């Protein structure tokens, strides 16, 4: 899909969520859904297979998100999948998250961790990243077992890697 089209979808989703007054929740849920979409081949195939009828793909979205996300989130994802743009969901959602963060003058900070972070940890991490980058950040935590331990934070083009995985890889390459 072209950049302009991705940007168009992201803007539309952003405006709908803002109009509904659920922008924070929706962008958070969409961000989590995008990461799940990226990490699951089965989900990707189910939502992008042209041979599967659109209604059925939308049914998959509703059964997956229905109980765990707001109605707006479910409808937005269902709309994108229904228009045959399921393949571009992560790009559209990332653009939406960036737009939502910009609207609040925040930088998106994607943090990968092997285990979930407590609210306190997230608050302190948010403050630490703001201190390190000089920007207030919109913290997005992704549970990624491949990190093994520690955290990897990405703010814009800056990557702060404190993961056990990277240390092990460095050790392996040194060996």
């Amino acid at each position: 899909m072209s950049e302009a089209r991705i940007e168009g979808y992201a803007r539309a989703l952003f405006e709908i969520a803002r109009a509904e007054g659920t922008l924070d929740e929706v962008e958070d849920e969409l961000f989590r859904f995008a990461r799940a979409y990226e990490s699951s081949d089965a989900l990707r195939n189910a939502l992008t297979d042209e041979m599967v009828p659109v209604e059925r793909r939308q049914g998959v979205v509703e059964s997956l998100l229905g109980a765990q996300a707001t109605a707006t989130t479910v409808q937005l994802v269902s709309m994108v999948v229904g228009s045959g743009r399921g393949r571009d969901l992560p790009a559209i959602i990332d653009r939406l998250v960036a737009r939502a963060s910009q609207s609040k003058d925040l930088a998106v900070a994607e943090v990968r961790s092997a285990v979930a972070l407590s609210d306190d940890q997230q608050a302190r991490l948010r403050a630490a990243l703001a201190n390190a980058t000089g920007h207030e950040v919109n913290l997005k935590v992704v549970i990624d077992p491949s990190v093994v331990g520690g955290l990897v934070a990405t703010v814009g083009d800056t990557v702060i890697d404190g993961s056990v995985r990277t240390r092990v890889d460095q050790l392996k390459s040194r060996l």
Partner: protein
Amino acid sequence: MNLFAVIAAGEIDPARSIHWLWPAAAELIYGSLASILIFGLLYKFAGPAVRKAMADRTAKIQGELDASAEARSSAESEAADIRRAAGDIAAERQRLLAEADSQAEALLSEGRARLTAEIADLEARAEADQAAAASRVGDELRTEISRLAAEVSDRLLADTLDDPAQQALIESFIQKVGSSS
């Protein structure tokens, strides 16, 4: 006394023959004169034509003789050419046979050399393949060992990294990031 003297002497009747084989005298005279006249006329008028015909015939025969001689000479020349050519053919045959022998020898020698080179090349390639296979197997083995080692180390790490360790790592990260500016 000859017959004419006898006739002139009137001793013989010119109208009668003196012998049954011999014509009468008058007939003999007139006949002789007529014959002479005829031969004279023949000589006078037919002679040139006859002489010309004879000369032509002679010339024709001479021409045929000359042509025959020329044909014979030509045939002899051709025979000589053929004999010479036959000699040349034999020499050419010998030359061609010698050349064919030489070429066959060269081909054989070249074939032997090529075969030897190919055998050497095949042996070298087989050795290289063998070495590559050994190296590949070694690489695969090393890769597999590395993979297994990584898997084991990941499992060990996962076992080692219990919740307190995870929390410690997270806290360490937050502290480290917070202290940098």
